[in-house]
């Protein structure tokens, strides 16, 4: 319960600041850039949403309903972009397509120096990059839905004389709607969270605004109000997702049957399908990774910066390990609390403590800032002066922010593995006189240690990739790998950024590969998972759920 309070506290501060708007701050914001920021954010959300829906949903249908060369391999490789952080793909994209990039140079070479080229530093380009890294959320959920929920409906529609396309529109899409909505919600949450990637493209979203207002002017009030607005956006996303789900929430887990029998695409059609899927994969993963490798290999400075990489890497690892230990420890406590108590309060507290992941990272960060400010004020009124606590932030604040954000991931993973320990084991132990701590230590932890290890790994990797929170909360001089990548990239020092970026991508590939293998296994195994769309929870908790279930 105390955990729930600690988790919700930062959010409370943001909500409070939204509920008690300061007129001065608002009027100033309004005069300057607020209207643009709101419009840009909306536009970006719509574009990325539409993009991921078309790319993710389309690819999911392609690999589900058709057979074409390389289908099986592509069907799991298409998940890989999940391992590519937006702030990495963003700068690679910029380098390749930007004014001095090979694409534009070739273009000008062919059509003359004044040939028109679309503006790269634009909201369109940012949306394209985010679409490429975020479409796997929609892709994953849609594939599960297509395969499990909609398979028998599709078969019935075909037997009633529908063409595949018509069956898709009339039977499959309506049934898959909740899953698509859930995937879309995840995408939008991630879009709201991001402010690093969009800044490469000079796009001013609300989240980017938070960063600039805070890091540029240390204007806490303005940052808090903006964070409140972002939170509002997130709430709207959740509400829309719920309503899109509609009654489908109650749908029986359909007898998925044997799944959709894929149709063979012959001749050039098959190759077009292969090429389309490969192109997406190439643009989102293969090409950028190749470019990074080339840079890293050819960069003379890489050797010189090795020492610094070591420092940043150890910072990152330290953060990741502390966060993982903390989150998993709390996760074990929370997951067990609901087993030992059937009181509603405990259950509600568990649900609340998981809310952090549905809240965009900048909001979490600003909430933590406000909390620290309040603490600071209290300490000062008590006569204790901790100089610079607020302005410079502290590693503790970063860890706190991470914990709030990733707790859901830890709790859901630990819960999923604890669920496999039968209640009777716990009850037998209790009737044998064992206290709850003894049961947790002797039975629950040993019996769910695989799940706990998975949770720790997932949290650690997410913490390693995390950029927005650390950017907002880090103390001066405290850099992690993502921060360093981002700074180098912002200064167009792409070659230098390549090696640390590769390290991040490599670490992120690990859980994605495990997930892909799991999915491939499911493909041949019995249809077991409930096809209902998961809650708008953690992007990564979706993966976690997949991993451990």
């Amino acid at each position, binding site marked *: 319960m105390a955990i729930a309070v600690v988790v919700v506290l930062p959010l409370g501060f943001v909500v409070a600041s939204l509920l008690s708007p300061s007129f001065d701050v608002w009027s100033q914001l309004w005069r300057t850039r607020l209207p643009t920021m709101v419009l840009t954010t909306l536009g970006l959300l719509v574009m990325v949403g539409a993009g991921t829906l078309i790319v993710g949903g389309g690819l999911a249908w392609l690999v589900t309903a058709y057979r074409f060369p390389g289908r099986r391999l592509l069907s799991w490789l298409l998940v890989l972009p999940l391992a590519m952080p937006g702030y990495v793909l963003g700068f690679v994209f910029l380098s390749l397509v930007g004014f001095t990039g090979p694409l534009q140079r070739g273009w000008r070479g062919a059509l003359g120096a004044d040939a028109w080229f679309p503006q790269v530093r634009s909201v369109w380009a940012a949306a394209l990059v985010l679409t490429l890294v975020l479409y796997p959320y929609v892709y994953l959920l849609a594939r599960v839905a297509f395969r499990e929920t909609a398979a028998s409906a599709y078969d019935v529609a075909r037997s009633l004389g529908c063409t595949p396309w018509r069956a898709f529109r009339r039977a499959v899409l309506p049934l898959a709607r909740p899953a698509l909505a859930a995937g879309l919600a995840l995408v939008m949450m991630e879009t709201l969270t991001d402010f690093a990637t969009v800044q490469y493209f000079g796009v001013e979203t609300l989240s980017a605004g938070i960063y600039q207002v805070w890091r540029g002017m240390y204007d806490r009030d303005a940052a808090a109000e903006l964070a409140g607005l972002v939170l509002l956006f997130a709430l709207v996303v959740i509400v829309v997702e719920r309503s899109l789900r509609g009654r489908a929430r109650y749908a029986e887990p359909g007898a998925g049957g044997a799944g959709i029998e894929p149709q063979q695409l012959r001749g050039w059609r098959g190759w077009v399908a292969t090429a389309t899927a490969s192109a997406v994969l190439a643009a989102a993963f293969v090409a950028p990774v190749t470019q990074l490798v080339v840079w890293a290999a050819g960069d003379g400075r890489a050797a010189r910066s090795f020492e610094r990489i070591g420092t940043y890497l150890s910072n990152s690892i330290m953060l990741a390990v502390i966060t993982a230990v903390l989150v998993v420890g709390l996760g074990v406590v929370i997951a067990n609390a609901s087993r030992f108590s059937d009181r509603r309060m405990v259950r509600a507290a568990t649900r609340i403590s998981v809310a952090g992941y549905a809240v965009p990272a900048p909001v979490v960060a600003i909430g933590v800032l406000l909390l620290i400010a309040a603490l600071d004020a209290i300490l000062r009124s008590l006569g204790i002066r901790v100089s610079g606590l607020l302005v410079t932030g502290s590693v503790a604040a970063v860890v706190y922010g991470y914990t709030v954000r990733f707790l859901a991931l830890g709790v859901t993973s630990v819960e999923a593995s604890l669920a496999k320990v039968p209640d009777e084991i716990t*009850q037998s132990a209790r009737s*044998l*006189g064992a206290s709850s701590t003894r049961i947790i230590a002797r039975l629950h932890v040993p019996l769910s240690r695989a799940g706990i290890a998975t949770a720790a790994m997932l949290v650690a990797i997410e913490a390693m990739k995390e950029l927005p929170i650390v950017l907002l909360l880090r103390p001066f001089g405290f850099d992690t790998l993502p921060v360093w990548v981002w700074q180098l990239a912002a200064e167009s020092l792409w070659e230098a950024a390549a090696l640390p970026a590769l390290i991040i991508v490599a670490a992120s590939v690990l859980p994605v590969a495990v997930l892909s293998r799991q999915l491939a296994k499911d493909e041949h195994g019995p249809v077991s998972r409930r096809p209902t769309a998961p809650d708008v929870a953690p992007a990564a908790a979706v993966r976690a759920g997949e991993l451990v279930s």
Partner: protein
Amino acid sequence: MTSSTEHGDPPAVTDAPPALEVRDLGKRYGDTQAVDGIGFDLDAHEILCLVGPSGCGKSTVLRMLAGLVTPDSGQVVLAGRTVDGPDGHLAPERRGVGIVFQEHALFPNLTVEANVGFGLAGLGRSRRRARVTEMLALVALEDHAARYPHELSGGERQRVALARALAPAPSVLLLDEPFASLDQNLRVQVRDQVVSVLRATGTPAVFVTHDQGEALALGDRILVLRHGRVAQIGTPQGIFHAPVDRFVAAFMGDADFLPARVVDAVVESELGERPAPDAPPTHAVELVVRPDDVSFDVSPTGSAVIDGVEFQGESNLYRLRLASGAVVRSRRPHTEVVPVGGQVTARFSDHHRSPVLIAGSEPSGPRRDDPQALPEPAAVRTSTDRNRNAASASSSESSFL
């Protein structure tokens, strides 16, 4: 037979308090009253079977006794100590009640020895070891101490679970469908072993089962539950031969029901007449007829027809359609073969005991808070006074033969 089953008599005064007293226990889940005012006593050394169809609340009762579920109302008194009641709820780990589950719930990460020793944390090392050895000897698994649960057979696991639950010398042992996960051949064998261990240690026990055959074989007494209420409590013989209503009659063994009339202390039915000296006169009643009570003779002029036959190994179970259209079953030796469709004369078999009369329509289940008031050997309940007369009717000697 224990004191509390002696119907009509005041409960015998014993020196020791009952091992377990349950009073008016209730539990509600949402809109469902899972358990509704259950009450019974368990004497020292007694084995009680809680039996009923799935969803009747029997497992919930067991979990409440163990303290795993907190009752909404009522009292549980364990060996004289109130563990559930108006003054609160004692946590399961502090009750000293043993529990054995259907799936055994052995701790898979611990050896047999560590499993059995789990509840002996308070004991010193050497005493704990001695107790574990003693318990393993009791269930004949001394040489399996170092094994892990997955290395044991189903029956062995069951015995480990029993040894583990008995090791801390619980005041009561609760068993939740403990044999349901074993296959049929093993079940009887393990059941006998478990009962003999319980007898040897003198541990009073409450079994939950949905298998009426198991209940009849195991229990000193049986408590039949229906919709969370006590339908009947009594000895196996009492419940089998004198069910209080249609539900108990049908649940505890095969039973058919025949309309009958009582005229001048004689029960008249389609299968013939039987004297019933104490039956209330001239009321339409229903007769419980079990397959062993019915016999027939092949006769071309017989008014009954063989409707079907089920081969059951050592016997054949015939379905007879009587002239009125009523259907009764008759169990005959397998040596005797009568073709389906043949005409027969149906009658009570020669060894037929007292006919059991119950009310003409199925009652909704008796509501009684005091188990002592429950009818014991037989209940005659007529359609006019069916709800309140049961106790007085049962206190008379109700053999109608």
